[in-house]
C-alpha cells in the first residue's frame, strides 16, 4: 500500500508540468468563452457568477483529488514538492487580498512612501533563504514550534512559539476572510455576513481533506489565476496607451507625465503648493518610519510560520534554497507591476478629471461614488447633483475639480482599472476571480498553520503523545474547522482595524519569533532560558506598544513617556498635548480609531505599524543576556545544531509511524 502511494505520487510529480499546462490552457479557454458570452449579451452579473463559481469548483476538485490520510502528506505534502512549484504555491500563500487589491491603491495614495510595502514584502525572502528556511528543512520540522522545541528543549519554548504563531496567524486570517467576503459581496451582490461564510466554504474544501498536500496543489492553481488576472488588465492598458505591452517599462512615461501635470496644477491653482508629489519621498512617513516599516515587514516575512512551513515540503535542503528564489520571482511579478497600476490610474485621474468642470465627470465616478468609494469635495460622488451640492458648499469653489477635491478608496484602483480604461467586463470578472484566489490561498495556508499548531504542537506533542495517526488527523481536521468558523465569525463582526491588523501580524511575528529562530541556527550558545525570555520579551513589548498606542493612548502618555508623533515635516499630530490630556476622554480604554489620541502617540516618533522596531532589538538583547547568564546548552544540543547546519544526512525529526 505504502509503495503504491509512493509510485502514484511520483508519477503525479513527474507529470506536474503537463497537468498545470493543461490547466493554464483551460483557464485561458474559459476566459475566451466568457468573453464570447459577453458579446452575445449575457448580463454581467451572470458572468461574474461563472468566474467565481467555476474557479472555486476547480480548487475544490483539486482539494478532493489530493486528499490524504498519511501524516507526512498531511503536514508537509510528503516532502515531494519541487522547488519551482513550491515557489508558485508560496507566491499564492504569500500574496493576500491586501497585496492583490489594496497594494496598488496604497501606492496611488502614498506615492513613493507606499514603496515601503513593495520593498518590505519582497526583501524578507533574502533572510528566509540565508538565515532560516534551509536549516529548518534539514531538521525536518512539521511546524515552526517543532524546531524551537528540538533546538532549545522542552515544551515551555514550544508553547511560547505556539502563542506567537496563534497571535500573528489569527489576526492575519481574519483579514483574509474579511477580504474574501468583500470580494464576494461586491461581485456577487451578496450580503457581507453570508459572503464571509460562502468564502469560508471555499477555503475549507481545499484545506480540510488533504492538509498541506491539497493546499499546495490548490495554491499552485490559485497562483496561476491570480497572476494572469493581475497582469492582463495592465498589460492591455499599456499596449493601448503606449503601444508596448510591458507596463513595468511604459509607466516611466506615465510618471513623467504625472510630474508635469502636478507642476501645472500648482501653477494654475488647482492644487496647493504642498501637494503630495507622486515620486517625492517622505511625504507620508518620516524617513525613520519609512525604514522602520521596511525592516519590520522584511523581518516579519522571515518569521511568519505559514510562509516558513512551505519550505518544509521540498524534497531536499538544496531545493528549499532554490525554492525561496522561485518564490520571490513569482511574488516579484506582481509587486513590480503594482506601481504601474498606481501610475496609470493616477495619470487617468489627473488628465481626465482634475481641472475639468465638475458637471462633466465621467460615468465611472458616479458608479463607484454610489458605493461610497469615490469622494468629490468631501462627499460621496453618488450623482451629478450630489457633486454639485458638495462643491457648491465650499466657498470660492470655481466649479473646476481641484486636486484636493478628489478622493478614492484604495481598493478601487485595481478593481476599477478595467472599467476606467474601457476594457470589456470579462476583464473585471477576471480581476475579481484573481482577488478571490489571492484571499483564499492565503487563508488556506494560515488556517493550516493554525490548525497544525493546535493539533500537532499542543494536542499530539503535549497532551496525547500516544495518539494514533488516524486520531491525530481527525483532531487536526476538527480543529481546522473550529478555527475557521471562529475566524469567519470574527470577520463578520467587521473589526475596524482590519488593514492595520495585517501589518501588526508582521510585527508580532518579527518581535516574537525572529531572534529565537535565527540565533537557534547561528549561535550555539543560545539556550532554553534565553529563548523563552527572548520570545516573551520581544513579543510582549511589541504587543504592549501596539495595544497601548492604539487602544490606551492616554495611559501611554501619562505613564509610559509616550509623546505625540509628528508628520513628515516635523509638525506634531497633537499640537497641544497638555490640553488633549485634560480632555474628558483622555483616559478612555479600548478607544475607537476616531479618538483624538489613537495611534498618534508613541516612543521616538514611531508609528505602531512598525512596533517590532522596539520588540526586535529587545528580543535579541534579552535572549543574549539571559543565555549568557545561564549554562550553555548540552553537547547533545550543540551536535544537533551542527547537524542542522549540514545539508547531508537524514532529517533529524523522526516520525513514528
Amino acid at each position: 500500500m505504502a509503495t503504491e502511494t509512493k509510485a502514484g505520487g511520483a508519477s503525479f510529480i513527474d507529470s506536474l508540468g503537463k497537468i498545470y499546462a493543461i490547466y493554464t490552457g483551460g483557464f485561458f479557454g474559459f476566459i475566451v468563452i466568457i468573453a464570447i458570452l459577453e458579446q452575445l449579451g449575457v448580463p454581467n452579473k451572470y458572468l461574474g457568477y461563472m468566474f467565481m463559481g467555476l474557479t472555486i469548483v476547480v480548487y475544490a476538485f483539486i482539494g478532493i483529488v489530493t486528499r490524504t490520510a498519511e501524516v507526512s502528506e498531511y503536514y508537509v505534502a510528503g516532502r515531494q514538492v519541487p522547488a519551482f512549484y513550491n515557489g508558485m504555491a508560496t507566491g499564492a500563500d504569500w500574496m493576500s487580498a491586501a497585496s492583490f487589491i489594496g497594494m496598488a491603491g496604497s501606492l496611488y495614495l502614498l506615492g513613493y512612501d507606499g514603496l515601503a510595502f513593495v520593498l518590505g514584502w519582497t526583501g524578507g525572502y533574502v533572510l528566509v533563504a540565508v538565515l532560516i528556511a534551509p536549516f529548518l528543512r534539514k531538521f525536518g520540522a512539521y511546524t515552526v514550534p517543532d524546531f524551537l522545541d528540538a533546538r532549545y528543549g522542552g515544551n515551555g519554548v514550544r508553547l511560547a512559539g505556539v502563542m506567537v504563531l496563534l497571535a500573528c496567524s489569527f489576526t492575519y486570517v481574519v483579514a483574509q476572510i474579511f477580504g474574501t467576503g468583500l470580494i464576494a459581496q461586491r461581485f456577487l451582490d451578496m450580503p457581507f455576513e453570508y459572503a464571509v461564510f460562502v468564502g469560508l466554504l471555499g477555503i475549507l474544501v481545499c484545506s480540510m481533506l488533504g492538509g498541506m498536500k491539497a493546499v499546495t496543489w490548490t495554491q499552485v492553481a490559485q497562483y496561476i489565476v491570480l497572476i494572469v488576472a493581475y497582469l492582463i488588465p495592465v498589460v492591455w492598458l499599456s499596449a493601448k496607451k503606449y503601444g508596448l505591452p510591458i507596463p513595468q517599462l511604459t509607466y516611466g512615461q506615465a510618471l513623467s507625465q504625472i510630474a508635469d501635470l502636478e507642476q501645472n496644477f500648482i501653477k494654475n491653482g488647482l492644487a496647493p503648493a504642498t501637494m503630495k508629489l507622486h515620486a517625492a519621498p517622505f511625504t507620508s512617513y518620516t524617513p525613520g518610519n519609512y525604514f522602520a516599516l521596511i525592516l519590520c515587514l522584511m523581518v516579519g516575512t522571515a518569521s511568519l510560520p505559514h510562509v516558513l512551513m512551505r519550505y518544509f515540503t521540498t524534497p531536499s535542503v538544496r531545493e528549499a534554497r532554490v525554492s525561496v528564489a522561485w518564490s520571490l520571482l513569482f511574488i516579484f511579478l506582481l509587486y513590480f507591476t503594482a506601481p504601474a497600476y498606481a501610475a496609470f490610474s493616477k495619470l487617468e485621474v489627473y488628465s481626465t478629471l482634475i481641472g475639468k468642470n465638475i458637471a462633466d465627470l465621467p460615468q465611472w465616478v458616479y458608479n463607484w461614488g454610489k458605493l461610497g468609494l469615490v469622494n468629490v469635495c468631501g462627499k460621496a460622488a453618488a450623482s451629478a447633483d450630489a457633486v454639485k451640492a458638495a462643491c457648491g458648499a465650499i466657498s470660492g469653489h470655481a466649479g473646476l475639480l481641484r486636486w484636493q477635491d478628489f478622493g478614492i478608496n484604495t481598493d478601487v484602483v485595481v478593481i476599477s482599472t478595467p472599467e476606467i480604461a474601457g476594457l470589456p467586463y470579462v476583464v473585471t470578472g477576471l480581476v475579481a476571480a484573481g482577488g478571490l484566489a489571492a484571499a483564499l490561498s492565503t487563508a488556506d495556508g494560515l488556517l493550516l498553520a493554525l490548525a497544525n499548531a493546535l493539533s500537532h504542537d499542543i494536542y499530539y506533542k503535549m497532551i496525547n503523545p500516544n495518539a494514533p495517526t488516524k486520531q491525530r488527523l481527525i483532531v487536526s481536521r476538527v480543529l481546522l474547522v473550529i478555527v475557521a468558523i471562529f475566524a469567519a465569525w470574527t470577520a463578520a463582526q467587521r473589526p475596524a482595524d482590519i488593514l492595520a491588523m495585517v501589518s501588526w501580524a508582521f510585527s508580532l511575528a518579527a518581535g516574537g519569533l525572529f531572534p529565537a529562530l535565527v540565533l537557534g541556527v547561528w549561535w550555539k550558545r543560545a539556550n532554553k532560558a534565553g529563548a523563552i525570555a527572548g520570545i516573551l520579551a520581544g513579543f510582549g513589548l511589541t504587543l504592549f506598544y501596539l495595544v497601548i498606542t492604539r487602544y490606551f493612548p492616554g495611559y501611554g502618555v501619562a505613564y509610559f513617556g509616550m509623546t505625540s508623533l509628528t508628520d513628515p515635516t516635523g509638525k506634531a499630530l497633537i499640537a497641544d498635548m497638555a490640553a488633549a490630556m485634560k480632555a474628558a476622554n483622555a483616559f478612555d480604554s479600548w478607544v475607537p480609531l476616531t479618538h483624538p489620541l489613537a495611534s498618534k502617540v508613541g516612543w521616538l516618533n514611531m508609528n505602531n505599524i512598525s512596533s517590532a522596531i522596539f520588540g526586535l532589538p529587545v528580543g535579541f538583547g534579552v535572549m543574549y543576556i539571559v543565555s549568557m547568564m545561564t549554562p550553555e546548552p548540552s553537547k547533545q544540543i550543540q551536535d544537533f545544531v551542527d547537524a542542522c547546519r549540514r545539508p547531508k544526512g537524514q532529517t533529524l525529526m523522526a516520525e513514528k509511524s
Partner: protein
Amino acid sequence: MSQSSDDVYWGKTSKLMVVMIALWVFFGYIVHMFVTPLNGIKIFGFPLGFYMASQGSLIVFVAMLFWFGRSQDKIDRECGVAED
C-alpha cells in the same frame, strides 16, 4: 565527518551569509537613503530613486537568491556535505 572540516564548511557558509546580508542592507536600505539625489536622474521617465525602490532593488533580491542557491550548493559539494 571531522570537527575541522565542519568548521571549514561553516566558515565558508558564514562568509556567504555575511555577503548576502551586506547586499541586503545595501539594496534594502542604504541605496534608498539617497532617494532625493537619485531622483534627479531620469531613465525612461523613471526618477532613479523611485525606480530603485519600485524595481531595482527587487530585481537585485531575486538575482541574489538564485546566485545564493548556486554558491551555497558549490560550497556544500566542495566540503562534501551536499545531499546525495
